[in-house]
């Protein structure tokens, strides 16, 4: 390790001090890790000896020589296990850091490859040091500790819609594809092993069933490897979900095949009955796993309904319930992976409706963190175990295996796609098929399953392991490294980075209902019909049970809208009002451009507000622009809300309450045209104090005024920025005072549309009032009088 980084140092790191320090830390950690176990071999005995001596002597009670009190002693055994675990985790994370410091390495070589190499080096170094390589690829450790976080992360954030839309295809690939692979590879391997009659080798001893077992181990596409590689190539959603979904769902098949062949390998034959039982077992394993996961998911959702007072432990429920789902499924030899996926997918919509925003962030980042560490550790351990593991290299076996894996995958994908395309609307093109076939990576699960084999029953276990490792290395290194350039070369569609817009959401919903309606008119009970039924069932019964409070009735569109608002408000607050644009593109369009110019209706409330000259309008806008840098940048609904927010903040912070009689107040009240009730236009006109030189008004239409959206303060949106609510609450007691400056909560608004304009006007004036510094571009002197 020191040599490797050392050679890179001059080229890549330059002379940056922090990076050198990091390397130093890395080296120290590593040395400590390797040296301490060696050094500690002797000292614990010493200290142990001391202790026993002391105890013995004390027991005797007399006749002991007083030793010096041990000021400093090393007791490594006490902390050995946690220390080593922490050391590994630290090493893994530092490695991850290190890769990204090297500029172009991470774009050429996928991380998984680098980590395996690191593992190889670590393993090699440990072996060189003469120490025994720790059995890191302990199967229990892998299946119980390292795999669940990755799967949970995948399952919780699984995009449900594309997954369900392509479920048929995914299941075909997962079940039929894996079966085909297993039998093809196993069978042909057996055939290959049996040839070469003149040159009998150890291969002849391998029987059919172990070959099939080997085939079933090696045929499963590995979710860890797929995730690791696909995450970096940003491929379009369809292909991603196809390969990834397949890697998740083939677990059931793998479990059944593995157990089936393992059981009967000793006996040597599998009868038809066993085969039949195997099929039933598959259904039990798959559906049972999903059921277990769903049950735990519902429990988690139900629990989260009551966590409103103990927000801190909300993430804990998500993690613990999911983990227990996995363990319960594993207990019954059901598919733990499917249980985890089902649990995460089932609980997510309800949990997200119940938990606080902070908990949501916590869950997200904890899952990402754990899965990242797990993944790193898995690859490193793979490298270490490769160095350590007993190997039995057999050219024929290994090369035939690698070739067969590739061939089987290609044939399987092509054949299945031909059948699947008959039932799909969006057909899979040849390019898609190529990526699906090429993306079939094998990984650590195959290795662990191989490791699990009992050496007593399987004499050729070592050969199997060697072959498995070779295939893993081949797929991860060769396929993993070349898939990115191939994707570029073939111009495969990439992931759309665009944020989901509200228009798309509206129309997705609209389309759902439209298609359901058309199906109903046709009298055809297609899958829109059933989806609609499921949604209605969900809304009517399930949501009521599992979601707390008002949110249970919230339709999806509104939930989406609130989420979007919330995101933008938070972005805004985080950006601190800086120039950086939260939205995708700058636009000077604001609400005023959209609100229709109202022709003067019979009773226009706006007429109460005197006309604002164009010049004044410009001044106001300039002030707004300079002091609220965001005004120009707001391109959406949050424009209004952020204006309000900023105004409230300024008001709250800078402006002392003005006496009710001050001219500004009367002016404001006048212009706002109301105290608490809406006063008809005619009455207000009479109130105007015309000679006031500072009298100004706002244009009657809402064009020049950012309208304040009623929705923000709606009590049904608990997710609204709490800041707003606080300010509003702070304001409440003052409302009754005849200040006319307060922003009334919309629930008290008398008319649906009119108050908005009036409030907007009030808002603007308040803004004028509280701005102590009009800013550099306010070049008119007349701006000054606006200030208190």
């Amino acid at each position: 390790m020191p040599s490797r980084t050392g050679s890179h140092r001059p080229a890549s790191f330059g002379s940056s001090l922090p990076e050198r320090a990091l390397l130093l830390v890395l080296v120290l950690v590593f040395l400590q890790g390797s040296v301490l176990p060696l050094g500690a071999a002797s000292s614990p005995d010493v200290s142990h000896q001391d202790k026993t001596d002391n105890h013995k002597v004390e027991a005797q009670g007399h006749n002991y020589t007083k030793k010096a009190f041990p000021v400093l002693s090393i007791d490594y055994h006490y902390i050995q296990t946690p220390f080593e675990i922490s050391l590994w985790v630290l090493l893994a994370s530092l490695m991850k850091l290190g890769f990204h410091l090297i500029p172009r390495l991470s774009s050429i070589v996928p991380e998984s490859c680098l980590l395996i190499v690191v593992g190889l080096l670590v393993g090699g170094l440990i072996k060189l040091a003469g120490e025994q390589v720790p059995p890191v690829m302990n199967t229990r450790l892998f299946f119980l500790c390292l795999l669940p976080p990755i799967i949970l992360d995948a399952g919780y954030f699984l995009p449900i819609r594309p997954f369900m839309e392509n479920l048929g295809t995914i299941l075909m690939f997962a079940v039929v594809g894996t079966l085909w692979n297993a039998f093809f590879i196993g069978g042909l391997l057996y055939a290959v092993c049996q040839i070469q009659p003149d040159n009998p080798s150890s291969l002849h001893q391998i029987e059919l069933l172990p070959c099939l077992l080997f085939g079933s181990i090696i045929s499963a596409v590995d979710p860890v490897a797929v995730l690791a590689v696909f995450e970096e190539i940003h491929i379009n959603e369809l292909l991603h979900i196809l390969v990834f979904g397949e890697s998740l769902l083939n677990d059931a098949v793998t479990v059944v095949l593995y157990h089936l062949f393992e059981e009967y390998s000793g006996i040597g034959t599998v009868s038809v009955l066993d085969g039949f039982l195997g099929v039933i077992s598959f259904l039990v394993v798959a559906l049972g796993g999903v059921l277990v996961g769903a049950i735990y998911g519902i429990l988690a959702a139900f629990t989260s309904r009551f966590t409103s007072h103990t927000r801190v432990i909300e993430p804990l429920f998500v993690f613990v319930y999911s983990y227990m789902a996995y363990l319960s499924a594993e207990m019954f030899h059901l598919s733990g992976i499917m249980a985890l996926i089902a649990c995460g997918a089932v609980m997510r919509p309800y949990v997200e409706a119940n938990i606080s925003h902070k908990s949501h962030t916590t869950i997200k980042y904890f899952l990402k963190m754990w899965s990242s560490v797990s993944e790193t550790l898995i690859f490193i351990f793979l490298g270490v175990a490769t160095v350590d593991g007993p190997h039995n290299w057999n050219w024929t076996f290994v090369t035939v295996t690698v070739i067969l894996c590739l061939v089987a995958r290609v044939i399987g994908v092509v054949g299945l796609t031909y059948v699947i395309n008959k039932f799909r609307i969006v057909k899979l093109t040849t390019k898609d098929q190529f990526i699906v076939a090429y993306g079939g990576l094998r990984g650590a699960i195959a290795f662990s399953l191989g490791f699990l084999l009992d050496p007593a029953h399987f004499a050729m276990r070592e050969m199997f392991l060697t072959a498995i490792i070779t295939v893993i290395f081949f797929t991860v290194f060769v396929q993993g490294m070349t898939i990115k350039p191939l994707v570029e070369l073939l111009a495969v569609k990439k992931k759309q980075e665009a944020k989901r817009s509200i228009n798309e959401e509206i129309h997705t919903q609209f389309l759902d209902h439209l298609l359901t309606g058309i199906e109903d008119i046709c009298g055809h009970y297609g899958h829109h019909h059933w989806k609609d039924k499921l949604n209605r069932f969900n809304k009517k019964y399930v949501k009521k049970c599992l979601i707390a409070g008002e949110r249970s009735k919230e339709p999806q569109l509104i939930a989406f809208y609130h989420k979007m608002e919330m995101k933008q408000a938070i972005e805004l607050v985080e950006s601190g009002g800086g120039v950086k644009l939260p939205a995708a593109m700058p636009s000077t369009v604001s609400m005023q451009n959209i609100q229709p110019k109202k022709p003067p209706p019979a009773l226009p409330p706006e007429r109460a507000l005197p006309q604002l000259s164009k010049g004044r309008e410009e001044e106001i806008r300039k002030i707004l622009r300079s002091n609220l840098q965001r005004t120009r940048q707001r391109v959406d609904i949050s424009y209004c809300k952020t204006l309000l927010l900023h105004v409230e903040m300024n008001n709250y912070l800078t402006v002392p309450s003005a006496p009710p009689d001050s001219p500004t107040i009367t002016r404001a009240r006048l212009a706002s045209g109301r105290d608490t009730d809406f006063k008809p236009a005619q009455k207000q006109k009479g109130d105007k104090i015309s000679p006031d030189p500072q009298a100004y008004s706002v244009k009657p239409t809402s064009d020049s005024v950012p309208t304040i959206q009623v929705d923000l303060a709606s009590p049904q949106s608990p997710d609204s920025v709490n800041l707003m609510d606080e300010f509003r609450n702070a304001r409440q007691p003052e409302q009754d005072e005849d200040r006319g400056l307060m922003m009334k909560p919309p629930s008290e608004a008398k008319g649906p549309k009119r108050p908005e304009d009036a409030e907007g006007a009030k808002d603007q004036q308040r803004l004028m009032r509280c701005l102590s510094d009009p800013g550099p571009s306010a070049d008119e002197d007349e701006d000054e009088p606006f200030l208190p």
Partner: protein
Amino acid sequence: MGVSVAYSHVVGVWRSFFPTVSLEQIINLHKRFKQLSGNEDTISRENLDSIPALATNPIRKQIIEAFFDKRNQRQDEVGSFHEIGFEQFLMVMSHFRPPTLKTTEEEREVMRREKLRFLFNMHDTDSDGTITLDEYRKVVEELLSKSGAIGLEAAKAIADAAMLEVASTNVPHMEPDEFYEGITFEHFEQILKGLEMESRMHIRFLDVNTTTMHCGK
């Protein structure tokens, strides 16, 4: 077959823009048509209204209206029918055909535009070629109509936000006193580009490659 002779002209018309439709599917649709119309030759709005499954659909009215909208008959007329015959019924249904493997890029474009046009017509109730803010508000209100009071309050805000988005995407730089009249068809196409309408807006029943499913009797 007697039926095929009777409907050969219908088949001919439809096949001109739905080349891969099968006779069996037309026959099934015809059976359904007869069922809906009570064995008459035309369907009225009341017939469609009385379909029980449609009762829970929030945009029921718009869907029914779409069948009677002359703009969906591809003949550049405006207005609406009082009753429609099987031919017009089929014409509306043809908007929901899926693309096949053989559909070229150009044909996909045409299909996409056609489907978007159908949606546009559903929103543009006064047939003036633009979706105004009021019309869009109505759309969102209808979508949320089954959600009670919460829905109605939020509908306006959502529609406004959506409109703002359309405006800012299509006309990024507007002067403060300019007014965005409404969503034109081009703008509509632009904002829904990402949804790939030709693959999404289809009924499986009309895909001739799948095994024909029975129209519910």
